[in-house]
């Protein structure tokens, strides 16, 4: 699979953010005196999924991309926030906002992709007819 133009740029950006977040989590854990949080360790996962999404999906849509990106950013920040709070030995009820917003955005992104895919199929059917 050859990556070109905007697609290559998107993959590079998401890949760089993924690596940065991975390193941030590792450094934070290193200075946490043995107190660990899985949320901090795996905060890069959503960014990695966005990188893979940009590699795998050929025909992309601006709205779908934005919704997925917003969802990934929300989950990533939520994971980092919960990681920081857990390592401190505390808890916060505000984390539920991240999970809720991230899920809504991800579902909206899926809905956007489905609508677009459905619309494309209808157009193709009309052309075939």
């Amino acid at each position, binding site marked *: 699979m050859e990556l070109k133009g905007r697609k290559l740029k998107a993959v590079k950006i998401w890949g760089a953010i993924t690596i940065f977040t991975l390193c941030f989590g590792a450094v934070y854990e290193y200075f946490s005196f043995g107190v*660990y949080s899985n949320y901090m360790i795996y905060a890069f996962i959503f960014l990695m999924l966005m990188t893979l999404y940009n590699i795998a999906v050929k025909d992309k849509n601006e709205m779908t991309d934005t919704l997925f990106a917003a969802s990934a950013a929300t989950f990533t920040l939520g994971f980092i926030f919960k990681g920081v709070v857990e390592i401190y*030995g*505390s808890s916060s009820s505000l984390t539920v906002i991240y999970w809720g917003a991230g899920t809504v955005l991800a579902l909206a992104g899926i809905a956007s992709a489905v609508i677009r895919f459905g619309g494309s199929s209808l157009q193709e059917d009309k052309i075939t007819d």
Partner: protein
Amino acid sequence: MKEGKSKTVIFGAAYGILLAGFTVYALLDVFVLPKSYMAAEAPQSVSSESAPAVEWKKDGEEKILSSKANEGMDESGRWKHHGRIDKDGIISENSSKKGDRKKKPEISSRAEEGTDTVKKEDTEKYTAESGSAKIEISSYRYMDTDIHVAKVALNDGASIMTAFANDTYGKNIKATVSEIAEEKGAVLAINGDFYGARNAGYVIRNGVLYRNTSSGNEDLVIYKDGSFEIVCEDEISAEELLSKGAYNVFSFGPALIENGEIAVSEGEEVGRAMYSNPRTAIAIMSDGSYLFVVSDGRTDDDEGLSLSSLSSFLKELGAVTAYNLDGGGSSTMVYNGELINDPTTSGRNIKEREVSDIIYIS
């Protein structure tokens, strides 16, 4: 098409700002913004049996001790040290600075091999007596770690007391152990369970119920008669504990020793802590005296203890019931206004962390 793209860019930018703003607020909410709360139940009157023997009255800026508590105090209102006893048994003048303390003796060879030998440092000893308690502070070297132990024998009518930072129950209301101790006129103080860092876990202090939300933790209950009990929050409500006579309840844990036996397993840790750390613990002995224990850690000189090591140490001292309190950078012991241990968060500098609460003897 261009209009659609600009809309998504605007949405992305606006959402990014909203998300960043919310994250800043959430971090401030957890770590900075102070919130004071009301007690879960109206404060109950404390019986004379459990009331502190030492009474304070304020005269302008100065605190003057009542005559009942003046025994053992110097003219400035501080407790008189009976002196430091060196290894030859000679009592010398106490140094007021921690840095002036004598260099600690070498670790015993058995301790180096990792066995459960407790070596007492007789160069590090303070004793004090008053109308309410006799306190004896000793330092030990165990598992490459300095452990400071205050043995407290309370007289009739005296109690283990607790205090909140700024005398206020709430979140992000913090002060150093030294500051709270000074405010309360405590002669000996250690950090408590840092209840303010969590949203759940019973909080009963000096006979008042402040929080009745269960965290499922193993709690330490100190009753009005001074006895200890370990309970599980899932099995008893805070209101039931209060009606049973609980005077102070700490929600941190785990229990280190129950019925004279070690109650933690090898490798068991607090939450997500993985290895040796500074520790704070409180224990009761078979003779009814108490141990206030703080160990150092996170420095080149002090490796820190695991829960298992701390339990072994306390068992060797003869503890019947022992409970782990907030440790790490919070671990602090203050005696007569002087820092006894080396509190540190990073190991790079010795500095007291601000905490929510203390346990003290006045």
